[in-house]
């Protein structure tokens, strides 16, 4: 069952990600990305990370993508999607680079032996991804990074307002 679900969600994630790149109109790309992020949440559930799955749906597929769709609708939903490429060689260069990345990546993953990584005794028995466990680590060990994050968000808010402000 796990294997079936992995291939189901993984297939949807990958196909939707390819659709993001392949579709011409940016609005359709954004919708395909929402599908991809949603099925990625399914993979997180398979990996016993329910909190991350929920956050994925709420923040990524919810908040961030709505922001993207807002801006797409605000600027130009369907018209200036992908105008004819002025630099044709870039397309071939991109495909060649992608192929090279895959060719390099796969032998590396193949040679990666899991024996090198210490495995936790009984993963499925312990509940690592539980919200309580996550919160305990986040608010004790990672308290300072957590607080610094809020400064980052504040800077991002101010930066976004300043950047998007209409010039007088």
């Amino acid at each position, binding site marked *: 069952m*796990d294997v079936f679900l*992995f291939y189901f969600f*993984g297939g949807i*994630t*990958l196909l939707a*990600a390819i659709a*993001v*790149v392949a579709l011409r109109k*940016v609005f359709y*790309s954004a919708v395909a990305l929402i599908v*991809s*992020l949603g099925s*990625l949440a399914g*993979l997180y559930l398979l*990996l*016993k*990370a329910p*909190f*991350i799955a929920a*956050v994925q749906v709420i*923040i*990524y597929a919810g*908040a*961030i993508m709505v*922001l*993207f769709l807002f*801006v*797409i609708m605000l*600027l*130009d939903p369907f018209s*200036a999607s*992908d*105008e004819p490429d*002025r630099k044709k060689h870039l397309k071939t260069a991109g*495909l060649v680079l*992608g192929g090279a*990345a*895959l060719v390099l*990546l*796969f032998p590396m*993953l193949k040679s990666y032996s*899991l024996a090198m*990584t210490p495995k*936790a005794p009984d*993963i499925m028995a312990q509940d*690592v*991804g539980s919200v309580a*466990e*996550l919160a305990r*680590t*986040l608010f004790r060990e990672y308290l300072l990074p957590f607080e610094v*994050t809020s400064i980052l968000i504040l*800077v*991002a808010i101010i*930066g*976004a*307002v300043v*950047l*998007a402000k*209409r010039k007088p």
Partner: protein
Amino acid sequence: MDVIHYLILSGLLFTVGAVGVILKRNFIAVLLCIEIMLNAVNLSFVAFSSYLGQVHGQIFVFFVMVVAAAEAAVGLAIAIAFYRNRNTLSVDDADLMRW
């Protein structure tokens, strides 16, 4: 399910995102492809977190999501400012350091 399957899927997703960044000519589409790459990394973080039985990977995913949200907000603000100045979203037209 072995963790290697998740790593392969993550690698494929990252490659798709990287190729998209190079191929797409639309500013917002490039941002979308960056989101794909961030999510590919998140997937391998969570896969290792569950494989090693440690929660730290999931904390990192949490931080990556926060940074992605901030990046999306600032990136889209830049897109709006760019569109207002040049009346286009094509990255080929983003060739001035200063307007």
